[in-house]
């Protein structure tokens, strides 16, 4: 094993030019895929923070006794997907309404009795914030007898969900596409490298080298290339990230939103992936190559 690693390293020295190209190619592929993933993760994050605004309002019937309010609150809290329930009395509601509508506040000045209903504001756990789940929850809440009506901004949420779905599907499709493209490009590059070294491989076979003897260092080289390429790619991405988020910082200072970078685990995963990429590139090209 150590012998093969030694041979792989010697080989990298002997074929610097081509290994450099392989490493750059892997680095760029890693860069593209992980940049897109990062972009996608951040964009999803933004959409998610918007989604957090999604809440369900449940309006109580006018004649519900104060004593029952707590019971109803407990019932709703027990439903799946509910994170928090806040009671909003009719007085609070009027204040909120007035605050919401400063312009039309004059309207409320000569208002008689407060005819607004009491209500619950229901927050949902993140995983339940899909259109379908909110609808199910709304129907469940509506079945509580003291609840008169449930409101959950159907239109807004619907539009939102469809966009989010669109975004997610295209995002996944593109991530997969980019990944496949990266695999292809790396495999092609390694194939080209092996092609330009076919004479060397042929000569090794002629002096009695077994396939294993020939392949082992090539695989090791592939993995080493992958490792270097992965590290290079992630570092470049990190540099780009720093540059962009510095720019962002000025652009929307004090914004509610913070650009995220990949976690350490993800870094590690990417590098493992790109080592795999190097190996796979070798594997795909060698398969076809040693046959011929």
């Amino acid at each position, binding site marked *: 094993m150590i012998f093969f690693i030694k*041979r792989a390293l*010697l080989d990298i020295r*002997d*074929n610097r030019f081509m290994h450099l190209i392989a490493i750059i190619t892997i680095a760029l592929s890693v860069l593209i895929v992980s940049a897109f993933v990062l972009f996608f993760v951040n964009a999803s994050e933004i959409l998610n923070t918007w989604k957090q605004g999604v809440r369900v309002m449940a309006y109580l019937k006018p004649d519900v006794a104060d004593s029952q309010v707590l019971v109803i609150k407990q019932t709703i809290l027990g439903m799946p997907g509910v994170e928090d329930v806040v009671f909003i009395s009719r007085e609070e509601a009027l204040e909120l309404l007035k605050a919401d509508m400063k312009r039309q506040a004059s309207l409320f000045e000569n208002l008689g009795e407060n005819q607004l209903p009491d209500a619950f504001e229901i927050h949902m756990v993140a995983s339940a914030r899909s259109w379908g789940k909110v609808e199910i929850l709304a129907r469940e809440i509506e079945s509580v007898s003291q609840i008169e009506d449930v409101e959950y901004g159907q239109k807004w949420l619907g539009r939102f969900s469809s966009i989010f779905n669109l975004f997610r599907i295209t995002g996944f499709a593109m991530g997969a596409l980019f990944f496949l493209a990266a695999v292809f490009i790396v495999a092609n590059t390694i194939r080209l490298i092996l092609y330009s*070294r076919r*004479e*060397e491989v042929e*000569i*090794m*076979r*002629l*002096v*009695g*080298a*077994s*396939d294993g*003897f020939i392949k082992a260092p090539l695989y090791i080289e592939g993995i080493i290339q992958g490792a270097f390429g992965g590290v290079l790619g992630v570092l470049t991405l990190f540099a780009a990230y720093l540059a962009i988020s510095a720019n962002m910082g000025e652009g929307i200072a004090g914004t509610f939103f913070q650009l995220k970078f990949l976690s350490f685990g993800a870094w590690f995963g990417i590098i493992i992936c790109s080592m795999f990429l190097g190996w796979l590139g070798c594997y795909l090209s060698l398969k076809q190559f040693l046959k011929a």
Partner: protein
Amino acid sequence: MTIHEKGSAPAIRMFHVHKRYGKRNALVDITLDIASQEFVFVTGPSGAGKTTLLKLLHLVEPVSEGQILIDGINLSRIPSSRIPYLRRKIGIIFQDYKLISTKNVFENVALVLEVMNVKRSQIKKKVSSVLRVVGMEDRMNSFPLSLSGGEQQRVAIARAVVGDPKIILADEPTGSLDSDSANVVMGLLKGFNERGATIVVATHDHDIIRSTGARTVNLLDGRLEEPVKAEVEA
């Protein structure tokens, strides 16, 4: 087939071997025995099939028809995973040398021993000594492209003999060498022959054939020119 008395069983037997490249007949109905420890020249004009014959023996090309046995092993029956092991018993000098241009002289020659799993220290010793014999000891760190034609050929010869093969196939081993160097190389091959190796040399250099006086197999347009009646020796 006459059984040769020198050596025991024939090292190489060819029965009605044909080799076609597409429609071109490179070898036609070759039947030939080479005894163990024999020294044989293969001659013939350009394109006669000398290189093709050696390529068949080294499994570089498959036969189109007929059978070849090396040390009693039928080459058409051998599983491809065994080919490397067979090749390690054969040293070959290619007409175009086939040195690896990204490896230096030492590494090119050492490769044969690495493949056989020889120990590093052993490799160093053997490679140096064989390079000394061909006069390339001081060029160990040079790369093939910075060697003259004759120097490359000498490295190829060193590579062929470094593994102490039982059979040596040499394709025009003195084509790029001046007569002094050529004599050194032929002396080297004769030494191996005396120590038990079977040697087949393809050449068009009649001076060398004359000076050696070994059996000569004559090819013309892929055919044996005269059915080789092996002279009974001793």
